[in-house]
Structure formats: C-alpha cells, structure tokens
C-alpha cells in the first residue's frame, strides 16, 4: 500500500495494485458523513471496434451504454433493490471513454462495496431481458433527441469528425441498439470488465486495508489480456463540414462551435494540455473575459454562453456555445478574438486574474467526491497523478496559452452547429 500526502491540497491518498491488476485508490475524507465507491472500466461509447480472442469485432453503436443498463440485472433480480435496502444511492454513467458504476451511502459501506463489485463483475443476460431493455433505452434515446442541448452537440461532432467514433452518440440510435444480443454483451463484458482494465476509487472516512480486502475477496483472481482497440483514422485536423443547421422547438436560436485540437495522449503532458485548454477557454470567453462582457452588454449573448476543452482517446476539441440571437455573429467574434490573443498576446494582468480564478476552481472541485473519483480514474487510464495539478499548473505560462489559441482556435479548424426555433 502506497500512502501519499498532498499538503497543498489537504488531501491524503492510499494506492494499491491487486495481484489481478486492479488499481485501488482510497481518498481519505475523515470528516465527511458520506462514503463513495466508484468502480470504472476503460470502456465507453467510442470503443466500438476491438480485438477479442484474436479476431476483430465491430460492435453496434450504443453498446457500452446498453451494457451499463443491463449490468444491474442479476440472477436474483435487480440489484437496485439490494442497495435500496441499505439506503444507498447507486447509479452509473457511460461517457465516450469510461463506464462507471458508483454508490454513495452513510451506512453499511462495505456491504454496499461488496454489492457494487459483484454485480459489475458478474454478467447475467437473457434474451427476454435484453429485448425488454430495448424499450427503455429507445425511450431514453428519443428523449435525448428532443433535447436541443444534446442535438446541437451531436450535430457538431458529426461536422468535426470524419472517422473517429466520437462522432457516434454514446447511447447509439434506436436502429443500432436493435442489433444488440446477449452474446455481444457477453463479449464486451469479457473484453473490458476485466480487473487490469479497471479502477476502484473510494472516497470517505474509510479503512483502506478493508477496501483492499473486500476487492480481493469479491473480484476474480486473474485478469484477462489487454485488448487492442481501433479509434479510426482521423487523418485531418480540419472539420468535415463547417456549418450545420436544424429547426427545433426552442425559445431562441442556440449554437455550439467546436475547434479541432492537436492532442497529448497521456502522462503529465496530457494533464498540462488539459490545464492549458481550460485556461484558454477562460481567457477567450470566460464570464470575466473582455469578449464575454462586451457580447453580454451588446445583448448578443445571455448568461448561457460557456464551453470547455475535451480530451478523448484520439480526439481533442475546444467547444463553446449557448443561446444567441445571431449565432454566426457570436462565433465570428470568438474566432476573431482567439486570433487577436494568439497574435498580439494576452494582457499580463488579465492573465494573472484568470490564473488565480482557474486555480481556485481546481481547489474547489475537490469538494466533490465524484470529481475526485473521475479525476483519479482519468489520471490512471492516462498515466498521470491528478493531484500533481498544483505543480503542473505552476509550470504553465502565458506563452503556452497564446500558442494553444494560435494553433488550435482558428477558422479552418472550426465547425458551427446551430438550432433555429420552429415558428
């Protein structure tokens, strides 16, 4: 067991790699009433093509998310009821690169941990249950298709990417999920829900030894092999098309602009790039940036303008969007401002202001158990220690942020997705 203190953050971390390859991390929060367990696999909506037992498999869009739903079925029934008996709150999510199951409680933590580890590691699917789930997930997909925030994002991804699976919605489509069978689910579970492809992060007032013992007892003794994956051949940093428009029932036009970025796949360089990307967003269109306040004062945007920098396997992009009466005007203003900052430089005192705010935000995010667990998980899968962020942050300069904007946030790299109100 490795114990590491981070005095600048007031945090303490216990780490242990089980003999089956599972990484176990315990973040100590001695004053909290809640405890939290987060069990995640490096498997998400983007992992559609991979090698299993020597052959390449192409799986239907939405399968990781479908599998997440089906994992809650056990031979005995539905595991939700077991957690309910303990007053625990459990849930799961599937993102582009990760599927995670988590449980939060104020009592019976180790019982809940046992339940969590066992239902996620033991698959149980039948033809009937897989077919029944189609109804529920088809409803979920239809509901998101009515959601303009989802739609504007899905359109943008299709505009930005040609071959990367990031262009496929995580939940798939009503058509693609029809191809899912118990066998494809078992294949995917076998490939990705194996200890060396997973991490367990627990947060709370916990005994790290007992967490490790529980994991050793419940999980398989051996791990499966490392799986080769194919994220497509995204050859170009230029988008497929530069604009998409559609009409929906919204109160005013909304937009999302994306800029394709070069990426650092792993290590401290990855963490550093994500910090630079976040700073670039704040400098460019953050609430206190000159551009934001100007557009807000003009009435061109309202408080909904926002965005972020996303780093995914084989794909990175900066996005910004919100409601705007004239989306094209706001998009042009953002792109022009990025060019100006990249060429003429960022004002020194403004940069210091943004740097402080951004650091405060990173400290603040440690209030959230879920943020801690997700950061630890991304750090493990991408080989960096997230709690090194104060040191990495200190190494980032104004020139780094300027270079990032100059190279990535340009007209050529951009696509614009717009939703117009139906009349």
């Amino acid at each position: 067991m490795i114990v590491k203190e981070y005095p600048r953050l007031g945090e303490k971390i216990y780490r242990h790699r089980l003999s089956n390859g599972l990484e176990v991390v315990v973040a100590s929060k001695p004053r909290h009433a809640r405890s939290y367990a987060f069990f995640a696999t490096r498997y998400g909506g983007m992992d559609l093509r991979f090698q299993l037992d020597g052959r390449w498999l192409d799986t239907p869009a939405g399968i990781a998310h479908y599998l997440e739903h089906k994992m809650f079925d056990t031979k005995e029934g539905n595991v939700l009821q077991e957690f309910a008996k303990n007053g625990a709150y459990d849930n799961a999510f599937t993102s582009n690169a990760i599927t995670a199951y988590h449980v939060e409680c104020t009592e019976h933590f180790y019982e809940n941990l046992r339940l969590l580890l066992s239902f996620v590691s033991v698959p149980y699917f039948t033809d009937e249950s897989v077919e029944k789930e189609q109804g529920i997930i088809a409803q979920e997909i239809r509901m998101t298709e009515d959601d303009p925030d989802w739609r504007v994002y899905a359109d943008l991804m299709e505009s930005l990417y040609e071959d990367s699976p990031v262009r496929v919605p995580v939940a798939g489509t009503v058509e693609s999920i029809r191809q899912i069978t118990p066998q494809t689910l078992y294949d995917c579970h076998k490939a990705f829900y194996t200890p060396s492809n997973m991490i367990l992060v627990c947060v709370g007032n916990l005994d790290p030894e007992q967490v490790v013992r529980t994991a050793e007892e419940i999980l398989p003794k051996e791990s499966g092999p490392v799986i080769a994956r194919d994220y497509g051949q995204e050859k170009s940093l230029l988008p497929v098309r530069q604009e998409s428009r559609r009409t929906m029932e919204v109160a005013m036009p909304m937009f999302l602009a994306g800029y394709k970025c070069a990426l650092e796949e792993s290590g401290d360089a990855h963490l550093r790039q994500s910090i630079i990307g976040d700073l670039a967003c704040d400098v460019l269109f953050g609430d206190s940036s000159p551009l934001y306040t100007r557009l807000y004062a003009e009435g061109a945007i309202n408080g909904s303008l926002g965005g972020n920098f996303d780093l995914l396997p084989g794909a990175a992009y900066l996005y910004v969007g919100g409601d705007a009466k004239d989306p094209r005007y706001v998009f042009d203003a953002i792109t022009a401002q990025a060019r100006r900052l990249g060429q003429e430089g960022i004002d020194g005192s403004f940069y210091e202001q943004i740097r402080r705010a951004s650091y405060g935000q990173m400290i603040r995010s440690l209030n959230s158990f879920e943020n801690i667990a997700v950061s630890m998980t991304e750090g493990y899968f991408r080989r960096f220690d997230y709690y090194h962020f104060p040191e990495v942050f200190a190494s980032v300069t104004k020139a780094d942020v300027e270079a990032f904007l100059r190279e990535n946030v340009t007209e050529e790299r951009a696509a614009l997705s717009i939703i117009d109100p139906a009349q």
Partner: protein
Amino acid sequence: MTRQLLTDNVYLTYVPSEKFKTSFLSAQMVMPLASRTAGLNALLVNVLSRGTARCPDMDALGRELDMLYGARLDPAVRRKGENQIFGFVASCIDDKYLSGGEKLLEPLTELMGEMLCSPALQDGRLNPAYVESEQANLIDLIRSDVNDKRAYAARRLREEMFAGEPFGVNRLGAAGDVEAITPEQLDRHYRAILPQVRLELFYCGSASAERAAAAYRRALAGLPRSGGLDAAVTSRRAAPAQPRLVTEELDVTQGKLCIGYRTDSPDEHASIVANAMFGGSSNSKLFLNVREKLSLCYYAGSSYDREKGALMVSSGIEFANYDQAMAEIAAQLAAIQRGDWEDWEFTGAKSYLLNNFRSMEDFASSLESYLLFQAVSGSKETLGELMEAVEAVTPERVMEAARAIRPDTIYFLKGKETQE
C-alpha cells in the same frame, strides 16, 4: 450551528466546518410570494448583481472575484411554500489553500454587502441599461423551460392546479409582468423594500463565529432598517371531487404526464415516507413498476411539499400509453394506501430518506437551503429531530397518510396531431 439576531430583522445562521475546500455565504431577502412582486424581486437581484458603486460593471466585478481566487457571487431566487426567497449566494476557497496568507472572507462579504446596499447607480437610480438587459434575460429564462419539456410540463401543471393561490406563482414571476416593469418602478420597489425586508444571512466554513459576524456587520453597516415585512404562512386547500384534466399539444416526440395531488394529512412525517415509497426515490413503486417492470415510461417520480400538502407526479411516456400509465400510477398509489408492499420497500424508503438527511451535512449549499427554509417556515425542527421523527413512522401511519392523498389536476403534454 447557531442562529442570532444581528440587527433589526436580520438573522445570521452560522455553521462551523473544517471539511470543505470552500467557505459558503448567503444573504437572502424573504417576502410572501405574490404575482405583483415576484417578477420585481427576481429582476431586482439580477440587476443588483450587475455592479456596485465600487465595481460598477461586469469587468470590474469579474476582476474582483477572479482576484479572490475565483470567488463566486451569484443572484438566487427560490420559493419555499408560499414565500419568495431572493438574494445572493457566495463562496470562496478556504484561506488555508492560499500560500500567501491572504484573507478572502472579508473582501467577499464586503462585496456582497455592496451589492445589496450600494448598487451601481446612474443619476441616483438603478442603472436603466442594466434593468433593460436583465429584464430581457429574465424573460428569456422564464420562457426557456420550453426547451426542457419535463420542467415545462411540471410548471404548467403547477400553474393550472394552483391558479389563484400564491403557490401557483412562478418564483421568477410571469414573463408578461416582467416585460411591463420600468426602470423607475424597479428603483422605487428597491428603495421601498430594502429597509423593511427580512434578511437571512448564512455562513459555513472554517472561520470563527465572531469573525463571520464581524464581516457581515461591517459589510451591512449601510443597510437601512425600519422593520416590518415578514414571511407568509402557507395555506392549504382540499382537492375537488373530480380531478381536472388539462391537455396541451407541442411538437414533441415523447409525451409528459404530470399529476398533482393534495393531501390534508397532518402527519407530515408519514407523508414524507409515503412519497418516498410511491415515487420519491429511485427504488419507489413508480420507478420499479411503472418504469422498470412495465417499461411504460422513461422516468416517473414524485415530490412532496410538506408545507403546502401537495404531491406532484411527473413522467415521460409514449402518447399511446396514456390510459395504461394513468391506471398504473393510480394502482401504485392504491397499493400504498392498502399496505400492499414488501417489507424492504418500507425500510428501504426510510433508509433512503435518512441517508439523504445525513448527507446534507456534507454539502454547504444543502445546509444553507435546509436551514434557510426552516427559518422561513418558522419550524424549530432540527435535522436530528426530523431524522428521529421519520425513523418512528409506522406502516399504519404511512397507509393512513396515503389515504389522504387525492388527485386534483392531470396535465398531459402530447405531440401535434399532424405527426404520427
């Protein structure tokens, strides 16, 4: 936790805590919810948050907050029972995470006080440009819930069911009323309510009670006081003999079915448990049966307002499943009324609630809203007492409380006839 009278009609609730990375502050005005003033109050806090005499615009304000390591200071408008609660919530990282020994609590409290007592003025009045731009934003915000059909359907049910009662007033006011507000009117309103309005202050963090009180005292030194306004007591009404059906059509692919019930049961703790078993938890009858077992809908849940005696069900269904969903929701309520449940549903609902109550202590914002809502409703019940009371609820009491739940209004949002 302590609560003290700081000055005339101004109270400070103080919660010491070492477990957060941040300190949490809040200054809230409390007034009875009324259609005449709801929009004025909502607009007022948004206008005040645009600038102060010292930091007169968003650039200056943003710079001030950024330099306090990304402190936050935002307007908030909430509803509790038939009261409107409006003001500012703020937070900053705890001093101990700053290497230079800087103090953030005092300057942040100061800025919050300025926002309340010394706003940015033009010719001695609230800046008309800010009023106009916040007015446009607020109208957009009120109308934007049409983007989220789930929220839209819930709001429409509320408006229909509680028409004529303060409870039916939107916490942000009605778009049309907000549209009619003039800068002069808002300025007069501000000057009229500021001396009289009840103010609830809150601090949670690692600073001492003395330091927090001193920071607020200094920040509010300029607050005029001449007493007067207090919170309203929430009223209850009986459900009609026959529930009313309201149907609306929009261009949507999924239907929304919302049902509003009223209860006159005085046993609020049993009603809390009944609601958790019916639709108020992720393991409720509505979730497990209507959603999971029958796949009748994507979501189905309920919420219970203790003060108003109102229970609201919200669900997303296929248009064609309306009759079946209606019947099934009614059947689940009937099951609770006659005690038709497995033991774990009862104990599970209780542990779910107790877990939620205990968890509140891990979130400064949850503590703030719980303690603020207690103060506004005049309830003296502590979190510990609430937990004990819920723990003591028996199955018989749940059945009895459930039998007092009667449907009042059904709201169904469906697609336009033209589509299949």
